[in-house]
C-alpha cells in the first residue's frame, strides 16, 4: 500500500491555512474591522447592506447603516476559485441537489452565524485574537457537526446533483464580476457605511488581490472549516483540520507581530458579545447546517466559483438570511444579542434542521 509523504498530505492545506491567517491579519492591519480580517458571514451581510437589503444602525445624520459595503473579498474569493478552476479544467457546472432545501438551511446558518457574530472562519480568527467567546462558539460548532455526522452515518444526503450548462454555471461568478465592476466603476450605485464596521475596510484593490489568491489556494486545497472536524471524526482524516489549526497559529503569531496584541478574555473583544448561551447555540446551528450543506460558508463560495449552482443558491440564501437577521433584530452586536425574537428564530432553525435531517436519511442509492 502506497502512503503519501507528510508534505504531500498536509503541505497544501497547512500552506493555505497560513495564507488565510496571514491574509486576515494583513487585511485587519490595512483597515478591516479587528478580528474580522476575513469573515464570510460578515462580508456577505455587508454586501446585503451595500445592495440595501438591510441598513442596520441607520441614522439620518450619516444617511447609511453601519454594515453596508460591497466587500471585494467575497468577489475575489469566488473569482479566484473560478479562474483557477477554468484554467485547470475543473470548472464543471452542476446543480439540482435539493436547491430550495439548501436555500432555507443557508438562511438559518446565516442567522446562527450572526447570533454568534461570525462564520466558522471568523470564529477561528477570533480564537487566534484571544477572544474566549469564540472558544465557546467552537464548542457549539463541534456539537453541531457531531449532530450532523449522526445523520451522515445514517445515509443523509440532499440527493444527486446533475450536470448543468456552462451558462448556468457561469451566472454566479458573472454576478460577482458585475458587482466588482460596479464597486470600482460606479460605487455611487451601492450603499457604503460611513460609520461602524462597514466603514472600516482595507483598500479595495489590496483586498481584491488578497482574496483572489486565497480563493485560488482554497480551490486547490479544498480548505473547509466544517470539513476539518467532520473528517477527523468520521474518517480519522486530519488533513483539513490541519488548516484549521494553521489559521489559529498564524493569526496569533501575526497579531503579535503587527502589534495588535493578544489578550485572552471574554469581555471587551472587538465586534463580539459575551452571552455564552447564544454564542454556543448560534454556532451549533452553523455547524449542523454546514454539515447538511456539505461545507462551511467559505467552501460554498469556492464551490460556487467552480460552477456549482447548488452552492450559488446557498450563498444567495446566506445573503437573504443576513438581511432577515438584521431587519428582524436577530443579529447580535457588541452590546449583546439582538432585540428581536432571537430564541424563536434559533429554535425554528433547530426544528427545521431536525426535519430536514430525518427526512433525508437513507437517501443513498449507489
Amino acid at each position, binding site marked *: *500500500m*502506497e*502512503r*503519501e509523504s507528510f508534505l504531500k498530505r498536509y503541505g497544501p492545506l497547512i500552506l493555505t491555512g497560513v495564507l488565510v491567517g496571514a491574509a486576515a491579519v494583513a487585511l485587519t492591519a490595512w483597515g478591516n474591522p479587528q478580528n474580522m480580517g476575513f469573515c464570510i458571514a460578515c462580508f456577505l451581510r455587508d454586501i446585503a447592506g451595500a445592495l440595501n437589503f438591510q441598513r442596520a444602525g441607520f441614522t439620518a445624520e450619516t444617511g447609511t447603516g453601519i454594515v453596508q459595503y460591497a466587500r471585494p473579498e467575497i468577489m475575489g474569493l469566488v473569482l479566484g476559485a473560478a479562474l483557477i478552476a477554468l484554467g485547470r479544467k*475543473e470548472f*464543471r457546472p*452542476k446543480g439540482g*441537489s435539493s436547491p430550495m432545501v439548501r436555500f432555507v438551511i443557508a438562511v438559518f446558518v446565516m442567522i446562527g452565524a450572526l447570533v454568534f457574530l461570525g462564520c466558522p472562519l471568523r470564529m477561528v480568527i477570533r480564537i487566534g485574537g484571544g477572544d474566549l467567546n469564540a472558544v465557546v462558539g467552537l464548542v457549539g460548532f463541534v456539537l453541531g457537526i457531531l449532530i450532523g455526522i449522526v445523520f*451522515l*452515518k445514517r*445515509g443523509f*444526503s440532499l*440527493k*444527486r*446533483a*446533475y450536470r448543468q450548462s456552462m451558462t448556468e454555471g457561469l451566472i454566479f461568478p458573472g454576478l460577482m464580476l458585475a458587482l466588482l465592476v460596479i464597486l470600482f466603476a460606479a460605487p455611487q450605485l451601492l450603499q457604503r457605511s460611513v460609520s461602524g464596521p462597514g466603514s472600516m475596510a482595507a483598500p479595495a484593490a489590496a483586498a481584491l488581490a488578497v482574496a483572489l489568491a486565497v480563493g485560488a489556494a482554497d480551490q486547490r486545497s*479544498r480548505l473547509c472549516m466544517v*470539513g476539518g472536524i*467532520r*473528517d477527523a471524526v*468520521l*474518517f480519522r*482524516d486530519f*488533513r483539513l483540520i490541519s488548516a484549521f489549526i494553521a489559521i489559529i497559529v498564524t493569526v496569533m503569531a501575526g497579531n503579535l507581530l503587527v502589534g495588535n496584541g493578544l489578550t485572552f478574555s471574554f469581555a471587551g473583544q472587538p465586534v463580539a458579545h459575551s452571552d455564552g448561551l447564544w454564542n454556543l447555540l448560534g454556532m451549533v446551528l452553523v455547524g449542523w447546517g454546514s454539515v447538511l450543506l*456539505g*461545507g462551511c460558508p467559505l467552501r460554498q463560495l469556492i*464551490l460556487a466559483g467552480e460552477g*456549482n449552482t*447548488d452552492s450559488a443558491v446557498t450563498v444567495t440564501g446566506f445573503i437573504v438570511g443576513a438581511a432577515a437577521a438584521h431587519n428582524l433584530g436577530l443579529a447580535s452586536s457588541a452590546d449583546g444579542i439582538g432585540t428581536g425574537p432571537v430564541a424563536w428564530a434559533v429554535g425554528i432553525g433547530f426544528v427545521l434542521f431536525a426535519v430536514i435531517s430525518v427526512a433525508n436519511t437513507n437517501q*443513498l442509492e*449507489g
Partner: protein
Amino acid sequence: MIDARGYSCPTPVVMVQKAVKEGAPASLEVAVDNQCSVENVKRFAQHAGYRVEVSDFEGDFKLVLTK
C-alpha cells in the same frame, strides 16, 4: 459498482466506507464526478489497504479498488 456521481463530499466516501465495512470486498469500483471526491475516496481506500487506479469514465472518473 458504486455510482457516487452527483454526490458531494463526504457522501462518496461514506458510501465506500459502508461497502467496505459491510462486505470487505477484494475489489470495488466507484464512479465519482469531481476531483475532490477522487482524492478523498482514494485516500480512504489506501488507508483501508486497497490499491487504487483512477481512469476516465463517461467524462467522469472511475476508481478501481483492489486488495
